[in-house]
């Protein structure tokens, strides 16, 4: 007797006959109505458009940064595009499954979270041009940056909530990573708003507060969203 024989016997055995449907399920089927199924690309488009409109509204409300016209245009544009990609890519992986699958690509979403979190913190610490109208808090007044954290997290809230609504029931596995990706994406949108609004330009503030929005938003989302998307 070998493991191969045993497994072959077991695999060849006819599958067991399932029990009849439970009374609960029968009752549910009695009142079955059509549902609108998930359309991932459409959902992604809605999430992106609504979130961007919200982000633009926030910038209009908060006004552009004071040193905007003094900063290098190229740097402003490249970093803004970086934040935009940081918003789009994790949201894409969180919402759009590979062709023929129902569950989102949680592994790629997880990789996007790690890259965005490390990338934006490091980038902010390393590159942060200062101009005469810029402000520096430094380590001494680092705590004053909490307003930026609040603005960033408030911005992240919209894509996270929309994503959580769209993904209800779609995450039997990898839910924490997908939720973290929504949070990181939202955090990057928050980073974009802060990039265009906040004139505090020292390394610790840009790296740890603006970049930190991505990390904190991802962690909060990973902790909260899976409960909201779970179907019991």
């Amino acid at each position, binding site marked *: 007797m070998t493991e191969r024989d045993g497994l072959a016997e077991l695999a060849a055995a006819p599958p067991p006959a399932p029990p009849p449907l439970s009374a609960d399920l029968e009752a549910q089927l009695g009142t079955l109505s059509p549902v609108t199924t998930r359309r991932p690309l459409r959902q992604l488009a809605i999430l992106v458009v609504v979130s961007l409109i919200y982000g633009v509204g926030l910038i209009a409300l908060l006004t552009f940064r004071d040193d905007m016209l003094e900063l290098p245009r190229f740097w402003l544009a490249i970093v803004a595009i970086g934040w935009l990609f940081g918003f789009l890519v994790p949201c894409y992986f969180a919402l759009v499954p590979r062709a023929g699958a129902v*569950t989102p690509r949680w*592994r790629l979403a997880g990789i996007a979270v790690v890259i965005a979190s490390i990338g934006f913190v490091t980038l902010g610490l390393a590159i942060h041009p200062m101009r005469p109208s810029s402000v520096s808090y430094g380590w001494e007044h680092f705590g004053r940056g909490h307003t930026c954290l609040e603005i960033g997290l408030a911005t992240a809230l919209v894509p996270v909530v929309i994503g959580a609504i769209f993904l209800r029931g779609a995450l039997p596995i990898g839910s924490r990573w997908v939720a973290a990706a929504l949070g990181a994406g939202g955090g990057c949108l928050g980073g974009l708003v802060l990039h265009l609004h906040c004139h505090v330009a020292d390394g610790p503030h840009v790296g740890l507060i603006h970049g930190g929005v991505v990390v904190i938003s991802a962690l909060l989302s990973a902790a909260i969203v899976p409960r909201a998307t779970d179907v019991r």
Partner: protein
Amino acid sequence: MAEAKELMARYCDGEASAFRELYALVAPRLLGYLTKMARQRAVAEDLLQLTFMKVHRARAAYVRGADPVPWIYSIAHRTFIDETRRVKRGVVRISDSDELPEQRADLHGEADHSRDEPRADPELVKATLDALAELPDQQREAVVLTKLDGRSVAEAAEIAGTTVGAMKVRAHRGYEALRQLLGRPPARTAAAATTKAARGAP
């Protein structure tokens, strides 16, 4: 019989008969998977009903054109893990003193003889089932999905929510452990399984 994705689409359109067909198509194999995971037919049947109830509640999350079977298996996998944790958390203290160990309410609490036994070659199948029961949950799942259910490693990884590499390792280790367990005299294998069940080990 129609394909699973076609049935799922019709079911989402409100056709109850499509759900019954889908159940008839998927439930037998899913019950086989759950029986091997839970090691007890009655528990597996409950998990099966719970799984399909969750599928019903989450049907709006289905993406048209996608194969619903791996998704349904993932829901079954999640349901099994959740229920195992829930039951294991149900700790019952049978003495106020520290002399007696805590007895955990076990998902697989029934005696060995009550396990579901397929009918092919009863002795060989029972020995294999007993050996399978001794494997850790993750290895058992990997062996069940890849060797018994005929799923590809990639599909099994998707169902279990792990990487292809990790699934390969689990399946290999499970297979090796199974080989060692089946190399033993049958009586010893059965005795070990009985002892483990008595200890309340998962």
